[in-house]
């Protein structure tokens, strides 16, 4: 019987443009082609991706779009629907994001109704990391209301419980799944809160504790990735997910529905009694060492200054809220939230800015450092996966909605979510986040910040060091800092982007005045 599963895309999966065909002679037709060097790891990961979408998970969705220039767009129906045909290789988020999670050693939350292939995708990731399908399936932790910490981590040996005179003498029979490179927790929103806390320690700290014994979840220091599934991402489920655990999810990916046009494939699988995870081609499996190398290569992909600058600008919108506090530094959404206030109401009370154009007014929180780190890692990962030498803005735009979903929360009181077609964005959080970044980039261009970034220049001057700086020059820089503060003050309105600039200017002022005092004392 032919193995219909064993078909791996031919390399290269992302061909480069070339010149005229290189001449050849007939004798070459009868020679074995030069044994191809083993494909690079990025090529292997692309082959794994194409194997999954073409063979394993029936997913004809291409929601991660890449185009050079504007894609061909078709307006459909009379309610604003639009279908776009991207001009470059585009991808299914519900397959690619889990695959990138495997590559970077991240944590992926797969959400969606029952029977949408969430667990299947996670199990395939486990097989790609070197375990057999049976091992991976046995290691899947099924969330349920009676799941105890012992169920999750293992039990103390009864003999030791009787004989031990102190806790350190009690041996623990740890569960095998704890040290697997890919860990899968199904329906994590059905796990009791106490057990979730134990899970949090594993996810956040990489170890688990029982009876004073500690067990590392990643003993060889290799790449470890986590996959969680949930039917609900808005607080539903048997137990609410504790915020700290929810915040550990690097990316949140909705599972795609089944496309009825692929019904025949479904019938064929039932008739053959086959499961895709049992047919992963062996050449697609990554060794522990290859997983390490893959992670290192991804981390090494550079993120150029232009991209970093636009990301800085994007992040700057969200922390500040006018009337959030009295002291300038405390005018943040965190101040409001941690004192039990409602950020939406505080935003509404702000008459000092145009809330329609203030991107910060669309969210009820700012971004955590962890979210920013996640975004950087996944942007590097997708650039690497696409065979790019450095991270492009399109890479950031592609992963940003999945990395910030559940972390940057919409302010549903904002007028944006209250009228016309924009109401759709209240439920389609991914599109809203994508749009937020696009608008931020347009604003960045409109303000001319690529060519003119005075605060950035002042920070760069400081980064060059203070050695040898004369008192006169330090004074001149202090004046430049004050000039910039006056420039913002004269605008009348205050936005999040100004908040970060002003905070940075105050920092510069502190550094230079302290230096000046020292220089004057030193004579």
């Amino acid at each position, binding site marked *: 019987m032919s193995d219909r599963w064993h078909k791996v895309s031919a390399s290269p999966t992302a061909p480069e443009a*070339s010149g005229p*065909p*290189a*001449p050849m002679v007939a*004798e070459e037709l009868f020679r074995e*082609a030069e044994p191809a060097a083993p494909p690079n790891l990025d090529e292997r990961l692309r082959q794994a991706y194409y194997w999954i979408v073409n063979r394993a998970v029936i997913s004809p969705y291409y929601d991660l779009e890449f185009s*050079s220039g504007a894609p*061909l767009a078709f307006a459909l129906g009379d309610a604003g629907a639009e279908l776009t045909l991207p*001009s470059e290789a585009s991808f299914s988020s519900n397959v690619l994001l889990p695959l990138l999670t495997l590559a970077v050693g991240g944590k992926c939350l797969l959400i969606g109704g029952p029977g949408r292939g969430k667990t299947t995708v996670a199990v395939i990731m486990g097989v790609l990391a070197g375990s057999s399908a049976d091992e991976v399936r046995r290691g899947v932790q099924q969330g349920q209301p009676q799941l105890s910490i012992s169920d999750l981590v293992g039990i103390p040996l009864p003999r030791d419980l009787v004989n031990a005179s102190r806790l350190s003498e009690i041996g623990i029979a740890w569960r095998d799944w704890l040290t697997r490179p890919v860990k899968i927790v199904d329906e994590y929103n059905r796990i009791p809160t106490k057990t979730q806390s134990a899970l949090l320690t594993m996810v956040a700290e990489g170890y688990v504790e029982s009876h004073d014994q500690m067990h590392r979840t990643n003993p060889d220091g290799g790449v470890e990735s986590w996959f969680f599934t949930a039917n609900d991402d808005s607080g539903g489920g048997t137990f609410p997910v504790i915020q700290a655990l929810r915040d550990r999810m690097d990316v949140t990916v909705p599972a795609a529905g089944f496309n009825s046009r692929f019904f025949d494939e479904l019938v064929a699988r039932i008739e053959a009694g086959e499961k895709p995870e049992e047919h992963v081609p062996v050449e697609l499996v990554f060794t522990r060492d290859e997983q390490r190398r893959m992670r290192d290569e991804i981390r090494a992909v550079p993120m150029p200054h232009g991209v970093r600058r636009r990301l800085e600008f994007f992040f700057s919108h969200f922390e500040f809220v006018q009337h959030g506090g009295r002291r300038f530094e405390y005018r943040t959404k965190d101040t409001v939230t941690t004192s039990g206030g409602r950020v939406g109401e505080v935003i509404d009370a702000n008459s000092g800015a145009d809330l329609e154009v203030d991107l910060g007014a669309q969210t009820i929180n700012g971004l955590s450092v962890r979210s920013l780190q996640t975004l950087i890692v996944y942007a590097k990962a997708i650039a690497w996966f696409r065979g790019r030498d450095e991270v492009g803005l399109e890479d950031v735009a592609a992963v940003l909605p999945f990395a910030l979903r559940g972390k940057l929360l919409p302010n549903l009181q904002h007028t944006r979510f209250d009228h016309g077609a924009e109401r759709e964005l209240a439920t389609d959080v991914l599109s809203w986040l994508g749009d937020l970044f696009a608008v931020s980039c347009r604003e960045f261009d409109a303000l001319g910040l690529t060519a003119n970034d005075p605060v950035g220049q002042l920070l760069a001057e400081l980064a060059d060091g203070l050695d040898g700086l004369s008192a006169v020059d330090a004074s001149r820089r202090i004046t430049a800092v004050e000039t910039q503060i006056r420039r913002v003050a004269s605008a009348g309105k205050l936005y999040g982007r100004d908040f970060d600039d002003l905070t940075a200017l105050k920092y510069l002022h502190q550094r230079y005045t302290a230096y000046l005092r020292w220089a004057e004392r030193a004579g």
Partner: protein
Amino acid sequence: MIRRPGRLANGVGAPVATDAARAHAVALGQQAGLDLGLARANVVRAGGDADLFGAALAVGLDAWSDAGGTGAAGAVVELAAIAGWRAGVLALRGDALARIGERRFDASLRSGVAAALGFETGAVLDEFLDRQLTDRYWWPGRHRVRGYVAAVGGFAGFGDAWIAPADEWRALPGAGAFALHSAEEWWRLDADVWGTRLVRLPAEPAPDGGDAASAASDAAGASIVLRGDSHLAWLHVREPA
């Protein structure tokens, strides 16, 4: 009917081999110690059509045998060059033409070459070779299809190259080379009578690509015909009135 990319010379007049001829070719290959299966795989790797290669080689070897040819090893390699080129491997064009030129007056091989290219007589082969010197897109039936040589591109939804009809083209330096613009992207087309190759270009080619080298493609009078309502771009050569 939805039209797909293809070469018009592969319609009526393309070599068709019987099962007996194919089996004979395999036997000759084995006799010569040459793996025809490997050759087919390499033809596909180089952008050619495996079935057409198999048919062209089989009829060529059949005709060569009928004409009393001897020395299977040499004949299989010689005719594989012709069959590979006929099957669309552009990279074999130079090798195939050189081999035909050198062995033009070897009667048995000449029969094999004519058959592999789908020509009924050696006289047609002579005209073909003469015309190829100045017109790389010529084959005997071209006038019957009003000078059209090949259709390239095609709609991405059917597994072809483009998501939008091409809207601009220009000649590139080098014979048989063109640039085509579709959906904000530039593509390079290399073509001759039997084969085409379309690859994405990293950037827009220089608009003044019409230097001395590109005159070779202009010499044949080749141009690209674009239509706003089709994802195909047609390579066309103006036939003399």
